[in-house]
């Protein structure tokens, strides 16, 4: 299934893209998606942690992705 991935902050520099489309297996969990992402983009190992948002809401590791979900890679925030 297809999912759209958005990169923000330092992750957009590491991946050198702000948006990528991936074809992943059905019902992939966030945990497995993170593993998939590191394999595709080993440069992401340079940051200690990041959160994931799915369709503009923070997502837990066990959430399963659906076709056409928009997944955002959220490195530690620094607003204010």
């Amino acid at each position, binding site marked *: 299934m297809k999912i759209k991935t*958005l990169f*923000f*902050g*330092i992750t957009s*520099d590491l991946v050198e893209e702000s948006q990528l489309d991936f074809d992943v297996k059905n019902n992939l969990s966030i945990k497995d998606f993170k593993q998939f992402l590191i394999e595709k983009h080993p440069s992401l190992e340079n*940051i*200690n*942690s990041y959160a994931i*948002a799915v369709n*503009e*809401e*923070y997502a837990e590791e066990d959430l399963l992705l659906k076709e056409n979900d928009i997944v*955002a890679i*959220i*490195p*530690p*925030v*620094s*607003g*204010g």
Partner: protein
Amino acid sequence: MNYYFCYEHITCFEILKTMQRTSIKITSEKLDLNACYAFVEDDSCGGISVFVGTVRNDTEGKEVKKLDFSTYKPMALKEMQKIADLALEKFDVKKVAVHHAEGELQIRDIPVIIAVSSKHRKAAFLACEFIIDTLKETVPIWKKEHFSDGEVWVNAHP
């Protein structure tokens, strides 16, 4: 049927009333302190607490030239709205404004304004602190510091 319409009307009215108690904004234009203040003004309030974030000229002894704020705007607006709604729930406050800037900011510019009005001052102070603290933890906004010899994403390696 009439009753149904009537009920729906009341629900919409209630939602509208809550929305009128919060003002949430992300803009690349200069933030407007007077607008935030004017939004939270209310006849029933005895005080207004305002927090204004400003761009500092140094980070750990290193001279900062400018900052660049990027946002995941639709999600950031949702998260800011959640914080404002939570502040209305948790504290005895009347109105809340949360405005954040995006794009390039110079020293002394204003990245964020929080304004809160309440009947008694304590609630406004507490709500103001709660809102800025939570914003810094959850709202998807990122700050890049520009120095004379390079640039750094703030917090990227906690």
